[in-house]
């Protein structure tokens, strides 16, 4: 390891060769403001185009200023981060960005979370000395993501997320000079592109250029409509992140307060997507065992590995990118859609109401879920199984709108029957969780034995792609796990080439799984936040009295009263789906 010695703001520092000035400065507590730069270890995310020029510093002997995020330290380097020349340049550069940015902070969706706003405040900019023409671009409203590119500052983080992390390849810089902007090819709208709506572009956008499509008003309209019974479901990852929106420590579990808030907001029934996650395990686990047994009995036709299908971003990804493999993923619907289908059949019947009288709202850490519930196959006679999907951030907004003091809300419990869930369903919220939940149930169904140790630590972690072998009483089950679509693509290429060693693969589109979803409170590049959310999820699992999906008494009741058994005809009708070849859809209008 080669070390280099240098001086930053008169402080000596020794760093490894190859370290940038920005990292070296950080190591000795010198904060250099930056904007386009973002690095997330473990997530394969590194964005440093050196484009914004906010992090410029003075290096003695150098003619011009150096971008700290891109300039590597050299032996004997003398760096000054806070000279008049630097401060003036930094301010001027930020003023230039502001001169081509709509001054709409008061009504901007990103206000309070905007990194440009923070930067301008930290630099104390009170006047923009350089004004002139502003760039204007076509707006784009997809069912999940809104692109308002007048607010784009060309940091290119969305491009890195879309191309390098997710390998979706929708976003790239187009045009040149003052007209340059990040857009899909030919500046087509997202819903004509191969966008998966994973929302990772939104998760990293520093400004309000990329935001979620806000449906909070639709929720309010439903809540005040006396003719509607409004049912809400909350995804597992929401409870591990919602607290952050109210200043709580990342990783705070706020399940009971969230239920309390939802009740105060006026929802008639506060249910849990976790219930549907248990149901997913019943269906997907049974499907896995069915395919596995057929394979073991010598059936050459059966497709293995089975791939999970809970994640709508992932589903749209393989429909666009691997349409020839549509028979490989499980046919089980996602928990959100299973919930909707059961709520509007089984539960509506229990209430003696028509399905149209029910409004199902989902609270998701996800933007792709907004798109998922608009898919035609998930509606009956034009009435969608899930009417509105909002994000964790939108729920926080609704809570603030209602003037609720979140931290001091009393604890409350989900309603029954669709609020009961097991530890297995909670871990759906993190990478590795779905397959661990499936293994807990499949093990018992396959071996007929009681599983004593339910924690499969070998399936947990944050590495982008993991593998583990689980012993099913002599049968070695090879399991693959990928989070982030780039990692998923690699596993999928192996399956396509017939080289996959796996029996089952879990895939989640977002890095970290749903805890890192595009609808979660903004992490601003801090991976520790995701890790803390993950710990919270496993904590909730640990605290649950029942930790295997098939032991959920209300799931057992649902099968007894209504569905019959997993993979029954009714189960197939309500809980399973089919996929579409979308390869040709990505055409220019």
């Amino acid at each position, binding site marked *: 390891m080669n070390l280099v010695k240098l001086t930053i703001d008169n402080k000596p520092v020794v760093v490894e060769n190859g370290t940038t000035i920005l990292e070296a400065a950080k190591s000795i507590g010198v904060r250099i403001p930056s904007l386009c730069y973002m690095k997330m270890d473990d997530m394969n995310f590194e964005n440093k185009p050196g484009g914004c020029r906010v992090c410029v510093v003075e290096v003695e002997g150098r003619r*011009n200023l150096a971008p700290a995020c891109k300039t590597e330290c050299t032996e004997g380097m003398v760096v000054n981060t806070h000279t008049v020349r630097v401060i003036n340049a930094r301010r001027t550069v930020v003023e230039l960005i502001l001169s081509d940015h709509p001054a709409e902070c008061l009504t901007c969706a990103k206000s309070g979370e905007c990194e440009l706003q923070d930067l301008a405040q930290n630099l104390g900019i009170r006047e923009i000395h350089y004004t002139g023409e502003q760039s204007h671009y076509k707006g784009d409203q997809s069912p999940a993501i809104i692109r308002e590119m007048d607010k784009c500052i060309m940091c290119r983080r969305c491009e890195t997320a879309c191309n390098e992390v997710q390998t979706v390849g929708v976003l790239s810089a187009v045009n*040149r000079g*003052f007209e340059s902007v990040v857009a899909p090819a030919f500046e087509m709208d997202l819903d004509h592109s191969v966008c998966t709506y994973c929302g990772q572009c939104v998760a990293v956008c520093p400004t309000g250029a990329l935001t979620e499509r806000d449906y909070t008003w639709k929720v309010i309209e439903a809540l005040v409509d006396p003719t509607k019974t409004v049912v809400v479901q909350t995804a597992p990852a929401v409870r591990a992140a919602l607290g952050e929106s109210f200043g709580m420590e990342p990783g705070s579990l706020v399940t009971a307060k969230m239920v309390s808030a939802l009740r105060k907001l006026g929802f008639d029934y506060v249910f849990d997507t976790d219930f549907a996650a248990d149901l997913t395990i019943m269906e997907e686990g049974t499907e896995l065992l069915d395919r596995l047994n057929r394979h073991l009995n010598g059936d050459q036709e059966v497709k293995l590995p089975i791939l999970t299908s809970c994640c709508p971003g992932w589903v749209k990804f393989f429909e666009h990118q691997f349409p020839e493999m549509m028979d490989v993923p499980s046919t089980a619907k996602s928990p959100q859609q299973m919930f909707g289908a059961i709520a509007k059949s089984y539960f509506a019947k229990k209430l003696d109401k028509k399905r149209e009288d029910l409004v199902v709202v989902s609270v998701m850490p996800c933007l792709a879920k907004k798109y998922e519930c608009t898919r035609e196959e998930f509606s009956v006679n034009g009435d969608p199984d899930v009417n509105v999907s909002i994000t964790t951030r939108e729920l926080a907004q609704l809570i603030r709108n209602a003037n609720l003091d979140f931290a001091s809300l009393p604890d409350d419990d989900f309603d029954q029957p669709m609020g009961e869930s097991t530890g297995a369903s909670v871990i759906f919220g993190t990478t590795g969780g779905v397959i661990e939940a499936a293994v807990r149930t499949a093990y018992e169904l396959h071996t007929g034995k009681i599983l004593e140790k339910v924690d499969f630590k070998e399936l947990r972690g944050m590495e982008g792609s993991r593998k583990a072998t689980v012993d099913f009483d002599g049968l070695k089950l090879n399991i693959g796990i990928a989070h982030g679509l780039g990692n998923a693509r690699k596993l999928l290429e192996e399956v396509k080439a017939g080289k996959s060693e796996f029996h089952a693969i879990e895939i989640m589109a977002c890095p970290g799984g749903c805890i890192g979803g595009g609808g979660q409170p903004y992490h601003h590049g801090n991976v520790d936040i995701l890790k803390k959310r993950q710990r919270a999820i496993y904590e909730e699992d640990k605290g649950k009295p029942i930790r295997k999906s098939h032991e959920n008494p209300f799931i057992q009741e649902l099968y007894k009263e209504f569905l019959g058994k997993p993979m029954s005809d009714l189960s197939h009708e309500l809980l399973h789906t089919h996929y579409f070849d979308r390869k040709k859809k990505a055409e220019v209008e």
Partner: protein
Amino acid sequence: MAIDYDGLLASGSMMGSGGMIVMDEDDCMVSVAKFYLDFTVEESCGKCTPCRIGNKRLYEMLDKITLGKAEEGDLTRLRNLANVIKDTALCGLGQTSPNPVLSTLDNFPEEYEAHVKESKCPAGQCRALMQYVISPKLCTGCTLCARVCPVDAISGDKKLPHFIDTSVCIKCGACMEKCKFGAISIQ
């Protein structure tokens, strides 16, 4: 001044492709700087802020000066912006694009000041700052100028001095070209 790499760099210019343009007092230095900025604005790739937005703003400020709309303090702002772009731009294009502004500011400050403070273009190039005027002493009232004016900005009786209404005049110069008595000039 030595015409070599170092000599040109020292005087705020550069060798470029080795071309040389000769100009005289009829060339407006602000317009020359604007011409070069027009080129760099066009050529900017858009990757870095100073070049993408900064050059555009430099061009707009120069344009404002040539239109006689510049305000007190604009020249200070112009110089600061040019220096910052030079200091912070990512590539050679952005790092050199402010050179025409800085070297004309250094070598011909009086031209900039004339534009800003007196709304005058000493070279008579900035159309917005010029006025066509008929000298009553030299005008014979031949009416030729009034007849060629495409916007009817010139009035006057036959054999008496004529007059240009500057609010109507489009500064096309047709009158001056036609006048046989040298009675029309630019001020």
